[in-house]
């Protein structure tokens, strides 16, 4: 029989609800890097990401008294982040700026990266910066909802079930969006491989 999962953030949430602002600081420190990745890969802009992240935590702090623990804090804060980012993207329209120089230097020593570039694949032939630029462009060609699913699944490594809770859609919808987004990205990157100069 499955035991009900205990929210690891429950104690911090309760302390925050009882007026302990320091407990919320701990939640901010814990979730900032992860939410930064989520928001950044949806907006592709550091400035926007920073502003959005500040707004997300401010909203979470105001709303945390109403948080009843029906979902985990993880799911709850990610829902706020995704919804606010999607609203922001709708207002911003298709305008975006790519951040091309942000790849951390540690990527050069990453096992996964080395494997990716060592094998006989299209990746090997591409320059890292160029590849990243193409990837960002491909991502930005997706709709906001598809990009959100791709970000959560491929970049953040979330399971389908968690994504469905965050987006409040069925798992089938998540899988469908993911399939469609993969085809879109595949087509775009194939074009790049065929015409690398374009």
């Amino acid at each position, binding site marked *: 029989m499955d035991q009900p999962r205990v929210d690891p953030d429950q104690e911090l949430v309760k302390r925050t609800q009882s007026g302990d602002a320091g407990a919320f600081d701990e939640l*901010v420190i814990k979730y900032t890097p992860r939410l930064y990745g989520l928001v950044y*890969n949806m907006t592709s802009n550091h400035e926007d990401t920073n502003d959005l992240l500040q707004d997300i935590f401010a909203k979470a702090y105001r709303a945390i008294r109403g948080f009843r623990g029906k979902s985990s804090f993880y799911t709850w804060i990610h829902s706020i982040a995704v919804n606010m980012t999607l609203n922001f993207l709708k207002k911003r329209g298709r305008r975006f700026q790519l951040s091309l120089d942000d790849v951390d230097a540690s990527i050069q020593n990453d096992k996964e990266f080395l494997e990716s570039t060592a094998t*006989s694949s299209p*990746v090997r032939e591409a320059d890292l910066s160029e590849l990243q630029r193409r*990837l960002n462009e491909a991502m930005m060609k997706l709709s906001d909802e598809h990009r959100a699913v791709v970000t959560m699944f491929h970049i953040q490594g979330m399971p389908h079930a968690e994504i469905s809770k965050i987006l409040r859609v069925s798992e089938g919808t998540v899988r469908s969006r993911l399939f469609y987004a993969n085809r879109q990205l595949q087509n775009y990157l194939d074009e790049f*491989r065929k015409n690398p100069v374009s």
Partner: protein
Amino acid sequence: MNEFDDNEIARLLRLKRYEQPPPAYFENFLHEFHRRQRDEMLRQPLWRICMERAHSLMLRLDVRSLASYPAAVAAVLLCAALISVKIYQQPETARVALQSPPVLSVPANAEEELTLASPGIVRIRTQPLRSFNESAQTHRAAAPTRYVLDSVPVSYEPTFRF
């Protein structure tokens, strides 16, 4: 020519995990968050700040648990009031009994009974004339007082015999 398959795309997308801001960003993020919170608070009207402070203070004091103390105090005061009413009611009736003057009740045919023409046992019924304290000292307090008169009057003159 190779084509990008799903695994390839997934691997490429995972590379985007490395797109991170400078390390100092996360260190300063919390300070920036506090600064923005303060700025936002200063823009709010004074009454709202006071309301929020009062609300957070009440939450910190856990008002729900404190609410039991006034209830307990009220219950104790109520009990004390009831007990004091019970206690002071009894002495009040006793004081009334003391203050009321003793009533001498004489039967309607008392004059006949007291005449010498009908010597015999004359019973004078009276209400107890003793005070409350005196009656409290005897177990016969409630019983009516009885006086017995001799049928032959007492005389100190010598009896003449013929």
